[in-house]
């Protein structure tokens, strides 16, 4: 006797009962309370077969294993670094995961990463207590050099990246900026000021219009027009 209590693709609020019966399985953003499935945050309900999922409309970043994120060093500890990952939790980068180099006992860890450094890193584990372990070992994981850091809403990150990175490649190609988008909503850009400014404007545009269909075409038109203006200005 399983039934959905609200239609598929509807917006639900925390505490709302979305389905009844044991045939449905709760996944992201949904939990089971006896016979009922209840939403734990504000978002869009998606039913995929027996799985009930919730796409959040807002909220802070929740660390997930395998995510590539951009973080900032906020503390240098005895055996590693504490990293701000734009989340309610901080991450720990241990010495072992930081570099392939041998680090002698009592070495000055700020030689590798110091306060305020930004890094591209990957989450290797998130414990049930929300302790986040990260690593610097992997392709593209490194300390970031001079550039601009902007934060976007973490739930818009998939739209900014696009299918197989199509959206972000489009911005990169059009503006000529180097861009790294972290799953946690922290974005690093490097380019000439005008290019960076255009890239940031585009990011903000995607953020505010991501729910309207035809986004890719609109962003493409916008970028073309703005680049023409820039070229004309020179």
């Amino acid at each position: 006797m399983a039934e959905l209590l609200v239609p598929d693709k509807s917006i639900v609020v925390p505490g709302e009962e979305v389905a009844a019966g044991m045939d449905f399985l709760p996944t992201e953003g949904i939990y089971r309370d006896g016979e009922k499935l209840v939403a734990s945050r504000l978002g869009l309900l998606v039913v995929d077969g027996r799985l009930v999922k919730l796409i959040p409309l807002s909220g802070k970043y929740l660390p997930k294993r395998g995510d590539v994120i951009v973080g900032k060093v906020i503390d240098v500890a005895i055996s590693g670094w504490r990293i701000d990952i734009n989340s309610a939790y901080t991450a720990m980068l241990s010495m072992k995961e930081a570099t392939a180099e041998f680090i002698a006992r009592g070495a000055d860890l700020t030689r590798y990463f110091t306060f305020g450094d930004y890094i591209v890193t990957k989450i290797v584990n998130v414990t049930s207590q929300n302790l986040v372990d990260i690593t610097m070992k992997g392709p593209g994981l490194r300390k970031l050099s001079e550039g601009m850091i902007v934060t976007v809403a973490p739930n818009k990150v998939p739209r900014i990246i696009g299918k197989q990175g199509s959206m972000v490649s489009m911005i990169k190609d059009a503006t000529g900026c180097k861009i790294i988008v972290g799953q946690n909503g922290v974005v690093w850009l490097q380019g000439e000021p005008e290019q960076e400014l255009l890239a940031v404007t585009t990011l903000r545009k995607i953020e505010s219009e991501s729910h309207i269909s035809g986004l890719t075409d609109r962003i493409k038109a916008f970028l073309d027009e703005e680049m023409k203006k820039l070229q004309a200005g020179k």
Partner: protein
Amino acid sequence: MNELLRAHILKWFEKGKRYDGRKLDEFRLVSVEYGVTKNAEGSARVKIGDTEVIAGVKLAVEKPYPDTPKEGTLMVGAELLPLSSPDFEAGPPNEESIEIARVVDRGIREAKAIDTKKLCIDEGEKAWAVIVDICTINSAGNLLDAAALATSAALRNARFPSYNGKTVDYKKITDNKLPIVRLPVSVTVIKLGDHIFVDPTVEEENVIDARLTVAITESGKICAMQKGGNAPITVDDIDRMIELAAAKAGELSKKL
């Protein structure tokens, strides 16, 4: 990283641009709203971009200070509410909030904005005390200018409560305004490298070399200044900074 951020911001400045697309001498959108709180005798909310500050004026009858028996008193306090920035914590006032309160206070005092003699009720015994409280609602840079503007606006908005010689009835507000002579506005000019600019964002505030806050009256008279930041500034710098501040003060005064 601050070194990197500084270098990067300077690169933008070379092209006369800022992170949010503004020019160096450009303010964000400034708005002033009067009478925003119920219990204060005068209040105002000022927004400069995303920065938001509320100032409230309370009026009380108190004994004047012994050295100025014929004058009322002015007190300014500022609080950086933890809700306005992740960097602000609850607790006793810190350096930043004390500086805001003192700089705003000095601006009002040295502009002789309020005719304090008219606040006297009974020489040496009773006089009105003007108490200004500044609260930050959101901090996105340039709290000082926002606080000073909000204070001036709140003073203009204030009305005396009724007073029968013994007690003040805060429920009955009269139509009498404060004896305001002129109102100052403050403009903070920042120096970074060889560039000077106004209305910093939080990122820019983190990398400044030096700053100069200039309080200027509506008629263009400079009444107070405060220098901050680690780098020294030359007399030429000061001239340039004051010139820019004066131009911007004119714009801000129009918002009052």
